[in-house]
């Protein structure tokens, strides 16, 4: 984490970084820029990346457990496409630029993600249960619809086209402490809830029937897990954009190394995700300074080959 704070396109010597962190030499005028950079840009960004990485990997691991599918990721049941649609709607409606207005796009993205997941959930309910395959199918269908609607809006927009594309490619342009304050409560609530679901996820690995016979209230826990994971994912997507691979790869790697017990896998995924995304973010800042690469590209470039390598090396079945 210190590394993330110390590195950026503006070179600040490590000693200075530490001094700023521990508030010595506060009055020094020349340091005010460094102070601003460190406290207003780097530290919040570091925290945001940690939160987002934790949210994506934690949700990804929960979804893989819930759907008993190694390809499940936080976007499976529509969170990403819903967020995109919400953001584009907010952008094309042209909210006034009041203070609240600056939060409108992430808020809309968040609401879009949550509503989409609720829709998928509602559509898949069959009586009292929500069978897994139906959820996945509904998720695919609703996602496609949301994406198509987004494209339609983009085509028919005027000046907002660029802003909308900017959001879809790179995520929110909010920087500083604002996105952290916006995302943190939801991510923390979601992750804390998920952490308490470790045992339930273990039980669910044996299928709905066995889980029920063992005394687990399957619909309740399934709902809780989906809501908690969606909350965390939606908050992450709303403020950092759609970053792929974190939610898919990190849980797999953790499972490969430390086994499939969700009481361990969830916290490990959370920590692993935070580290992975932070590392990717550091790379995105230094590789082509002063240009910054979108983090999603780094995660894909780094994550995919690493994962393939891991698959080849591990002889034992790890699922």
């Amino acid at each position, binding site marked *: 984490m210190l590394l993330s704070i110390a590195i950026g*396109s503006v070179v600040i010597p490590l000693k200075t970084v530490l001094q700023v962190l521990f508030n010595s030499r506060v009055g020094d005028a020349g340091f005010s820029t460094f102070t601003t950079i460190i406290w207003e840009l780097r530290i919040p960004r570091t925290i945001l990346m940690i939160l987002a990485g934790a949210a994506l990997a934690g949700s990804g691991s929960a979804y893989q457990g819930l759907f008993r599918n190694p390809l499940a990721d936080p976007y499976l049941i529509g969170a990403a496409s819903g967020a995109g649609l919400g953001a584009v709607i907010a952008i094309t409606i042209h909210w006034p630029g009041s203070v609240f207005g600056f939060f409108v796009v992430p808020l809309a993205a968040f609401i879009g993600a949550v509503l989409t997941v609720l829709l998928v959930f509602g559509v898949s309910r069959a009586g009292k249960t929500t069978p897994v395959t139906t959820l996945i199918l509904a998720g695919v269908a609703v996602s496609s619809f949301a994406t198509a609607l987004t494209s339609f809006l983009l085509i028919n927009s*005027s*000046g907002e086209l660029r802003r909308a594309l900017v959001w879809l490619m790179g995520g929110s342009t*909010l920087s*500083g402490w604002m996105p952290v304050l916006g995302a943190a409560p939801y991510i923390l609530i979601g992750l804390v809830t998920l952490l308490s679901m470790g045992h339930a996820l273990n039980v669910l690995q044996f299928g709905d029937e066995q889980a029920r016979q063992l005394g687990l209230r399957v619909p309740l826990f399934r709902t809780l897990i989906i809501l908690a994971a969606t909350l965390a994912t939606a908050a992450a997507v709303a403020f950092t954009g759609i970053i792929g691979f974190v939610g898919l790869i990190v849980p797999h790697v953790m499972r490969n190394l430390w086994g499939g017990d969700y009481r361990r896998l969830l916290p490990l995924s959370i920590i692993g995700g935070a580290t992975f995304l932070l590392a990717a973010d550091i790379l995105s800042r230094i590789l082509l300074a*002063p240009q910054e690469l979108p983090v999603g590209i780094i995660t894909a470039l780094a994550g995919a080959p690493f994962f393939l390598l891991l698959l080849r090396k591990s002889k034992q079945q790890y699922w």
Partner: protein
Amino acid sequence: MKKIFWKSLIVVLTAALVLPGCQPKPAKSIQQAEPLPINLTDGLERSITITNPAQRIISISPPLTEMLFAVGAGGQMVGRDSYSDYPAEAKKITDVGWTYGKYNLETVVNLKPDLVLAGEITTPELVASLENLGIKVFYLNNPTNLDEMYAMLKTVGVLSGHNTEADTLVKTLQQRASALQEKIAKVTSRPTVFYELDATDPSKPYTPGSATLYTNLISLAGGENIGAKLTTAWPQISLEQLLVDDPTYIFLGDANYGTTPEIVTHRAGWQSLTAVKEGRVLPFDDNLLVRYGPRLLDGLEALAKALHPEFFK
């Protein structure tokens, strides 16, 4: 036309340097005509107070960079976005990056700007983030006609302390525009124009629609943009519609990206267009129309010359 522009610029700059009473500073000198402080409303409807002309300006919009140089404030710039490449001097200014709407905020902070000029491509969220870092931002909406562009030039002049130069420049540009209007008023026909922005899919090329600067300028140049009847700003027109409209001229705004009239003649279905058959497919420097600074006049004059060459012997 360009020479006049450059000459006036040089005159202005030289005057700024040479006239007594000016303090040469690391940044170019400042002349004030209006009493400060004043309040200006920016494009996001915020009231910005100007107490001193900005000395350390970062522009994150290429047209605004051009405007700054045009009014003589180029030397007061300390940063610019990656796409600000005109005039050539702009490239020497520190690059603050551009990655899908996000700039390198650390570099921005480190440059200690006292003003950031932003155009419509910048999101309000980014403006808020900059303000949160204690940086003053002035946001300017894209102009839809020449008068709005003149107003922007004047604003840029006020912000950078070059009111006089800005006013002078605006007058010069207005003169050029009126001269053009006189000529155009005498035309007997208004040829139809198809302005191509992008034809990656030749059956559905992109063209400027209604209420865009393009349509306005084409009209001032004595033509009619066939895209004007489409309701959105950057629509795709179908090849069928294009064939029905059969414009007299085709301007290739994507010439800067490699499209040539030769390529157009090979596109399926395009051979039946009159403009293609009679060789009226012309490459056009889109930067003269999309970078909405003083060069718009260059663009306007180029359009008029192409449409009504008989008036510009």
